[in-house]
């Protein structure tokens, strides 16, 4: 047990290191901050809600920086895309916060937040599953036919539509190999920013699919570029929370200790897999988070009287983190086996490099 004096909580420090490690691996791999996993986990460990949010945001900034440096070394960041997006993201976050204040004044912010989260994450889960399964099937057919597989394959027609919008200035994103109107990127930043500001999260789980399915970036570039946005918005959030006294630096340090290692592992793991594998993990993360949020919503709507709903939400939140880490680690393990000429299941072959 460790005494976190500022938060006024006693908690096992290794659990914080473990949370940092697991969320670091997942965040480095799918390009999310992991706010939707960390905040509930910290509340579960006994931290007050506002403190959980502040600690989460501060640790996201540090972890995002580590992942961003590693993704930069791997060539996964498109700076033109990232910098064009920032203006829209910041404006969107401000609009999202104002929207949240509006619902807070009506006294229905909690229920609206959970309902929006459930609807948004479930829709994204359905779309990513549908598209990724199609891409996976196509890759399996190509491999059977002996054709050379690239690092990326996506079957969505949405990027083609958005790339043909003729609004000047049209910009060329070299790393992402995309030519698109700057306004499309700014709009994507703004819409994802509104959702991030409204839901109080980094927004990676919305921004990564948006970069892939709207802008047309490859999944690896989407992950790296999104992390740049997370560092910037995380730094702003960390500063605001520190001023408000919502941050216990000892808790942040324990989490960063795990996250520093996890973020490196997660980022390096992306170089062992093809785009659809990352989208699968993102999709699984979304459905598990949806289930957790749906349970919490039901718990709130039933007047917080059904105890097993709360207990199941706790177990599901922890289980989700363990599940994602196991899945990512096993994909890397399968990739290493395949490189060594050893047997791997048929469904794995098209997903790993």
């Amino acid at each position, binding site marked *: 047990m460790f005494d976190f004096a500022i938060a006024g909580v006693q908690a*096992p420090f290794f*659990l914080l290191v473990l949370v940092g490690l697991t969320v670091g691996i997942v965040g480095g791999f799918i390009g999310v901050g992991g706010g939707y996993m960390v905040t509930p986990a910290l509340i*579960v*460990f*006994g931290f007050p809600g506002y403190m959980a949010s502040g600690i989460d945001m501060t640790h996201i900034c540090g972890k995002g920086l580590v992942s961003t440096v590693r993704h930069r070394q791997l060539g996964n960041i498109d700076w033109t895309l990232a910098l064009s997006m920032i203006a829209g993201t910041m404006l969107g976050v401000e609009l999202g916060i104002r929207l949240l204040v509006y619902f807070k004044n009506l006294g229905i912010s909690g229920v609206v937040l959970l309902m929006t989260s459930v609807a948004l994450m479930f829709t994204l889960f359905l779309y990513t599953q549908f598209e990724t399964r199609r891409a996976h099937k196509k890759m399996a057919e190509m491999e059977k036919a002996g054709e050379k597989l690239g690092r990326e394959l996506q079957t969505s027609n949405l990027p083609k539509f958005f790339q043909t919008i003729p609004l000047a200035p049209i910009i060329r994103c070299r790393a992402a190999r995309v030519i698109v109107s700057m306004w499309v990127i700014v709009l994507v930043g703004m819409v994802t920013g509104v959702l991030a500001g409204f839901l109080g999260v980094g927004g990676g789980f919305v921004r990564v699919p948006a970069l892939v399915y709207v802008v047309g970036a490859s999944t690896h570039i989407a992950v790296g570029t999104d992390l740049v946005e997370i560092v910037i918005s995380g730094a702003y959030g960390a500063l605001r929370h520190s001023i408000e006294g919502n941050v216990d630096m000892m808790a942040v340090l324990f989490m960063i200790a795990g996250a520093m290692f996890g973020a490196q592992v997660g980022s390096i793991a992306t170089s062992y897999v093809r785009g659809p594998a990352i989208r699968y993990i993102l999709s*699984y993360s979304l459905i598990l988070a949806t289930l957790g949020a749906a349970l919490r919503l039901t718990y709130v709507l039933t007047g917080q009287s059904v105890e097993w709903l709360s*207990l199941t939400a*706790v*177990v*599901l*939140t*922890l*289980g*989700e983190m*363990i*599940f994602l880490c*196991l*899945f990512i680690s*096993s994909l890397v393990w399968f990739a290493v086996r395949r490189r060594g000429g050893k047997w791997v*299941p*048929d*469904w794995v072959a098209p997903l790993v490099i």
Partner: protein
Amino acid sequence: MKWFINSMLGYWVLLLVISLGAAAIIYEVWLKGRV
């Protein structure tokens, strides 16, 4: 048993059961009564 490795759905189910089991143990050992 082979289905859990050779099918993606099976593998998903296998990992999910292991993960939720581990989470339930963590809850039982460290968190019960504290949350």
